[in-house]
């Protein structure tokens, strides 16, 4: 594998961060409506995994989908517009924050509901002989949903080339994982004969090669795999519902910020140039979305 492009990775991480910060900052202004679930703190997961996908690979995402969508290459203006309920949004204003589809990317807001769809999509690509893989992002909360285990069973039985990425941010809405999860996460996959790798890091350079190995393995030997990423969510579950002590979140931010970790690898001037460029891009996308018309009510 060629040496990672640290500047490009930083740009990808920072793009997600600025998008999500803008969403939280602007919610109070009334330009957004409804709900949102931001990805702040978890950016290295999406960037580390989705750096390896090819055209035609399929991605399923969940309620916390903005980071996955942006790492997939999704358009910022279209995503802002969707969150604003604009006609020009990714889903024409019908879906909102959690329900977006573009090219081979699909998200849904029902936890676990995407896990069989991802197995089915992976099976379809295998039957069609396209060589495309499917990546399905889930969180620790979804480990409580029964349909996940039906999906793992069928994916394993039928050799569906799907990579289940568990982003364990250790909290489901307000419930800490200790109150919601018994037993082991990797053992859940291993019980179905699905090889699982596990990382406890927010460093994109640690996630990147492991995800790359798994995906290369899947291309050579199609079948399901799991990647368990222990991560940190810095923001609230949605908008104002963080019940964790502030000092805990501050400690996570100090120790586990994927941007801080990766920024140390860039020269200050290089980093500032990327940040300035991304800030301008996000600001322009936000303004363009804001200027768009609302949809006709009956569309």
């Amino acid at each position: 594998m060629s040496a990672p492009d640290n500047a490009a990775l930083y740009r990808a991480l920072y793009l997600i961060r600025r998008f999500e910060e803008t969403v939280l900052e602007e919610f109070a202004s009334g330009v957004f409506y409804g709900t949102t679930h931001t990805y702040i703190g978890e950016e290295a997961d999406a960037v580390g995994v989705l750096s390896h996908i090819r055209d035609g690979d399929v991605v399923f995402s969940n309620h916390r989908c903005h980071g996955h969508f942006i790492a997939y290459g999704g358009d910022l203006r279209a995503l802002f517009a969707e969150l604003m309920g604009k006609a020009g949004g990714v889903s024409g204003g019908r879906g909102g924050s959690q329900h977006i589809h573009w090219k081979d990317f699909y998200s849904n807001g029902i936890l676990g509901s995407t896990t069989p769809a991802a197995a089915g999509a992976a099976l379809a690509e295998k039957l069609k002989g396209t060589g495309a893989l499917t990546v399905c992002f889930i969180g620790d909360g979804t480990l409580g949903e029964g349909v996940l285990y039906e999906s793992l069973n069928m994916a394993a039985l039928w050799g569906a080339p799907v990579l289940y990425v568990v982003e364990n941010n250790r909290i489901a809405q307000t419930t800490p994982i200790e109150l919601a999860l018994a037993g082991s996460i990797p053992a859940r996959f291993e019980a179905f004969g699905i090889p699982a790798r596990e990382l406890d890091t927010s460093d994109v350079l640690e996630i990147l090669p492991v995800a790359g190995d798994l995906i290369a393995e899947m291309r050579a030997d199609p079948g399901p795999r799991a990647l368990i990423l222990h991560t940190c969510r810095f923001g609230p579950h949605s908008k104002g519902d963080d019940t964790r002590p502030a000092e805990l979140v501050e400690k996570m931010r100090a120790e586990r910020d994927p941007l801080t970790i990766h920024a140390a690898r860039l020269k200050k001037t290089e980093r500032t140039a990327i940040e300035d460029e991304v800030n301008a891009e996000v600001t322009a996308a936000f303004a363009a979305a804001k200027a768009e018309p609302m949809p006709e009510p009956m569309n």
Partner: protein
Amino acid sequence: MPTVLDSLNDGLHRAFAEDERVLLLGEDILDPYGGAFKVPRGLATRYPDRVFTSPVSEAGLAGVAGGLALRGLKPVVEIMFGDFLMLAADQILNSLTKFGWMYGGPLDVPLVIRTPMGGRRGYGPTHSQTIEKHFLGVPGLAVLAPAALGDPGALLADAILRDPGPVLFVENKLLYLEPVRGAAHLPEFELEAHTLPGDYAPAYSLRIAGAPPPTLTLASYGYAAELARRAALQLAYEHEVFAEVLVPTRISFPGNAFFDDLLIPALRQTGRLLAVEEGTRPLGWAAEVLARAAEALGPQLRAAGRVAAADTPIPASTPMERAALPQIEDIVAAAVKMMRL
């Protein structure tokens, strides 16, 4: 005369032969067993790579089918008993019927979930129900139900090959062994198949041959339509009440031309509507039929009623089950009573 079971089996084989994107997933569907009710028999032998016998995982199966359909294949899922459909209900409500709309649409989700429904076989409370009413109000879901008329297999093949999906295809268990009847097999009736605008799913009308114009309209579907047909014969021969029977094969409502083109014009002539179904009485298909008729006709609708199952679970014991489910004599009695109005 082929049975409904033969016809549905033939429909599946035709769909498989016509389009190699068609797949079948379900429990116990491999030959020689060929499925609990034998509808898919022979497919696994002829198309071993396109038939996936599955674990007992209804929700997962529905979801996998969604993924297959999103990626351009045409899966058919067999749910062994209609009662088990609730295990897949979240997938139907929040994924399969949402994909085509919530992303800005249109996006095809060409999949068919087929399932046997209904009682009269002593299977008890969890293997005898008629629960499609819970799915009739789901936006974006086509619900089809063959009767023992016309070509049930063609309806199934059309649903698989022509519908952008998703489709719930409800097969009453007692229909399976009924012969499929055409006009030649029903000398006592004038049978007409109606093609409705923009719809591949036909509707049928049955009138007593050589009788005066009907004074009562019976509306029913599936096996209940077979009971309604037999009741119409009794009404004619024993009570001199001439009813017509209208039978849709599309039982979900939005854009349903059955009402505008067939039922409402019929009711303008008869003014009396008796809707017959095997599901429990409250809030079901018949309730919606009556509501639509009342909205369309107002005081022109002189009388309206329902014959349906009791609002209880289905008992296993034969006499108790018989009492809980609508019978021909219930339809006759309700019709005779209605004629006094």
